[in-house]
């Protein structure tokens, strides 16, 4: 069991299977007031007691309950209310609703932070201006004491109104034996306020020179940090734009045909096998298979593939794509969290929160950071008290406060995750799904890339191009026999042979004793005739003389075609050539990789001549031909032994061991029909440009992380000693705590903003 699959946040209602033609309504209610797990049983029982209800299942995590049966929503809501809870009918996707709630909560928090900031700066700025204009903020006369006492009380009001969350947070963390940014702010501002109050209330404890008031620092720091948090919240919102866009792709309702009637229902209520109607311009609500109508569908939002794809009966459609031209009916095959879109969203979310190894050092530092800063603050105060000039106590207080305030664990902690968030999202926009932070980091450092030929460089849809006869059998007879034999095989070449036979209207026979010989070909019998179909190795193995036709085979191979020998009853009957067209943009994408200094190597099971011809057409110099499927992984490790950091690109199914062996495995998909779980990086579209894009995005993200980490390290490494007064002996420089507050507030904002720059990253034009 993959642990990642075991967590659920906004579970969709349990999936119910709907047999075609069966009419059974599914309704979802949202429950309020259910605070414990035992409420679940109570609510379910209350609903099950309603006449017409077949089943009621509650999801405690998101407080939703899925009900099947024919009861009206009014009856259901009233039953829940009688049980002592509130209920409401729901519509819309859980992800979209959660997003909306999060945005509303963020907006409310932003307004609160801005209000905090206005109040604190409203007190702090006049105080600071007074200090700058009038001069020293000292207490000398009794009248001044009373006046400053009033200011002290006002500042306390600011601390309570605008800074309460710092103090409560610091206290709670302290009780839990942990410390965070709140601890530093609470200690810094608290120290400044307490010291000032001691100056006012007990001035005799302090020498005259040290009777300085720091209320302005307390108010200003609280104001600036609230401002920094508010701006950071806005900037953070932008880092998740990509996932918001993906979530937004899913429509909230769907038109479903039930009992001959077209009805509009919430997307959660669409059941498997429902017939869904989509008109031009509408989004596809769930995954399915077209049953009626023809259209062109724009899948670019999911795959990055710009051209709309033609769809007709039997073709798959995926949720989130846009129906462009015709009206279609399709049968729902995957709904709720099973749709490709839901899985993509899930994977992107997971990857956005995973950390590449480069962030581990910062993580370790973060864990020890705050207590270390507290110790530095104490040491700095002690140094001033022991060695500093008069008034030592004032200097000690200023330096300790400034150290506490300037230190910014946030900048360090946010450096990596913010960039990963934007980078992974950016990649998803280009149809590149990155599994986790580690894959992201390794992809940025790849030195060699192995490309599987079939389906990666080529379309993977081979066609029969030539049949060279070598016996009395006709072309149709050869093709009929070969295709009948191949009907037991799933090899792409088999499909080409069968397509060709079908095109000619040939009836296929049942093969017996079918046997696939890995790396050689296939054998079997049809109506008592012994058939062999494969490469020269198979012929040699079976002692078939093919010498007269090896030149023809070589000639075909030199044209990038795959020649195969076909023998009937121990005699060579024909050489059949199949060619797999090279994708239009393979050569350009491979050139992009090579331009980045990546050694590109092609891998194929085909013979040497075919491999050479394909390699030459796409500009690849190095290739491995005639590689048995089981040997692909060995070729990967061969390059690794040469010191290369190896990427392997394949279709994700046949190449699984090689993908796993590579430092980064890239699975290349066609459309959205991809095995998302099979590789480190999944390319949603078939183009190899996705590969170059993936590497470019990884490099850009890693670069961005490095800038952030460097900035955060330098900021703290330089800021803390300066705040402690390290420059004072030489330059007489000691930072004002207000400046430290401003620097701290904007250092984390800088990190988030720098990560946001990645949003504007463009993979090279193609």
């Amino acid at each position, binding site marked *: 069991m993959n642990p990642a699959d075991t967590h659920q946040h906004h579970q969709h209602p349990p999936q119910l299977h709907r047999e075609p033609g069966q009419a059974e309504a599914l309704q979802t209610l949202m429950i309020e007031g259910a605070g414990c797990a035992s409420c679940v049983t109570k609510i379910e029982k209350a609903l099950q007691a309603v006449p017409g209800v077949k089943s009621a299942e509650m999801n405690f995590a998101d407080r939703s309950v899925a009900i099947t049966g024919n009861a009206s929503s009014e009856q259901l809501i009233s039953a829940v209310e009688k049980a002592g809870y509130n209920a409401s009918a729901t519509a819309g996707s859980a992800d979209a609703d959660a997003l909306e709630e*999060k945005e509303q909560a963020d907006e409310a928090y932003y307004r609160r932070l801005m209000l905090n900031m206005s109040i604190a700066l409203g007190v702090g700025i006049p105080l600071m201006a007074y200090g700058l204009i009038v001069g020293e903020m000292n207490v000398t006369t009794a009248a001044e004491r009373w006046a400053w006492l009033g200011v002290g009380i006002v500042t306390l009001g600011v601390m309570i109104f605008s800074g309460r969350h710092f103090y409560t947070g610091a206290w709670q*963390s302290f009780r839990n034996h942990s410390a965070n940014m709140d601890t530093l702010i609470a200690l810094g501002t608290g120290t400044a306020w307490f010291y000032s109050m001691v100056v006012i209330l007990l001035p005799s404890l302090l020498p005259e020179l040290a009777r300085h008031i720091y209320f302005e620092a307390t108010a200003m720091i609280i104001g600036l940090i609230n401002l920094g948090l508010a701006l950071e919240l806005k900037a953070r919102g932008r880092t998740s734009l990509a996932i918001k866009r993906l979530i937004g792709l899913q429509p909230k309702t769907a038109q479903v045909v039930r009992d001959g009637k077209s009805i509009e229902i919430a997307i959660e209520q669409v059941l498997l096998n429902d017939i869904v109607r989509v008109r031009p311009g509408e989004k596809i609500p769930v995954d399915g298979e077209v049953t009626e109508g023809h259209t062109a569908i724009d899948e670019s939002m999911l795959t990055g593939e710009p051209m709309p794809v033609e769809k007709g009966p039997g073709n798959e459609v995926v949720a989130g794509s846009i129906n462009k031209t015709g009206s279609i009916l399709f049968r729902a095959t995957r709904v709720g969290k099973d749709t490709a879109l839901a899985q993509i969203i899930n994977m992107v979310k997971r990857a956005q929160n995973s950390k590449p190894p480069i962030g581990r050092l910062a993580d370790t530092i973060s864990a020890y950071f705050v207590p270390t800063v507290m110790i530095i603050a104490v040491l700095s105060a002690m140094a001033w008290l022991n060695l500093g000039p008069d008034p030592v106590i004032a200097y000690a207080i200023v330096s300790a406060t400034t150290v506490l305030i300037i230190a910014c664990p*946030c900048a360090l902690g946010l450096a990596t*995750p913010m960039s990963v968030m934007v980078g992974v999202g950016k990649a998803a926009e280009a149809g590149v799904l990155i599994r986790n932070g580690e894959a992201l980091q390794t992809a940025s450092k790849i030195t060699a890339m192995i490309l599987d030929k079939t389906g990666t460089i080529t379309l993977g849809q081979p066609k029969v191009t030539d049949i060279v006869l070598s016996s009395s059998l006709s072309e149709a007879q050869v093709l009929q026999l070969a295709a009948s034999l191949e009907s037991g095989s799933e090899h792409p070449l088999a499909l080409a042979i069968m397509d060709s036979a079908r095109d000619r209207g040939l009836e296929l026979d049942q093969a017996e004793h079918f046997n696939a010989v890995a790396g050689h070909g296939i054998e079997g019998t049809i109506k008592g005739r012994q058939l062999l179909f494969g490469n020269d190795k198979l012929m040699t193995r079976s002692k078939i003389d093919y010498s007269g036709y090896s030149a023809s085979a070589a000639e075909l191979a030199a044209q990038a075609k795959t020649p195969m020998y076909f023998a009937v009853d121990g005699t060579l009957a024909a050489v059949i050539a199949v060619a797999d067209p090279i994708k239009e943009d393979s050569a350009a994408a491979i050139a992009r990789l090579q331009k980045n200094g990546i050694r590109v190597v092609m891998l194929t099971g085909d013979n040497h001549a075919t491999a050479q011809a394909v390699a030459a057409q796409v500009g690849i110099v190095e290739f491995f031909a005639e590689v048995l499927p089981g040997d692909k992984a060995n070729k990967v490790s061969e390059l690794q032994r040469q010191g290369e950091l190896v990427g392997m690109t394949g279709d994700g199914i046949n190449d699984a061991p090689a993908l796993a062996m590579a430092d980064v495995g890239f699975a290349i998909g066609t459309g959205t029909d991809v095995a998302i779980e099979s590789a480190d990086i999944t390319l949603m579209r078939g183009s190899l440009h996705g590969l170059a894009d993936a590497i470019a995005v990884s490099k850009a993200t890693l670069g961005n992380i490095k800038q952030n980490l460097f900035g955060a390290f330098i900021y703290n490494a330089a800021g803390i000693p300066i705040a402690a007064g390290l420059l004072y002996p030489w330059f007489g420089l000691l930072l004002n705590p207000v400046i430290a507050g401003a620097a701290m507030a904007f250092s984390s904002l800088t990190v988030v903003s720098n990560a946001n720059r990645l949003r504007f990253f463009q993979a090279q034009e193609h």
Partner: protein
Amino acid sequence: MMLIVNIAGIALIAVIVWWFWLYKPTETVVDDGDVVIVVENGSYQPSHIKLAANRATELHFLRKDPSSCAEMLLLPDLQISETLTLDKPCTIKLPPLEAGEYDFHCQMKMYRGLLIVQ
């Protein structure tokens, strides 16, 4: 006088080291396979949770802290990451776990907790 101040300073440093690094916090024992963890005021409450090994457990996180730092919850060893919506419970179903310690924390490791599986 300075001697007292310096001793007080060193004592304060010792208290910081002990309180934040050396102290072993009390653990909340989960015996019914179900625990509610409130994210509030910069911390997880409870933060140290003792679970039975090889038994599935549900963690219900309830975020009451509006700070954006509290938004993300990570359990890196189990490859779990979740966005916690304010005032909305988020249930994480843990598979039966092998004995050991499993960290959970926010994106920046400022909010920290530990699952102790025995």
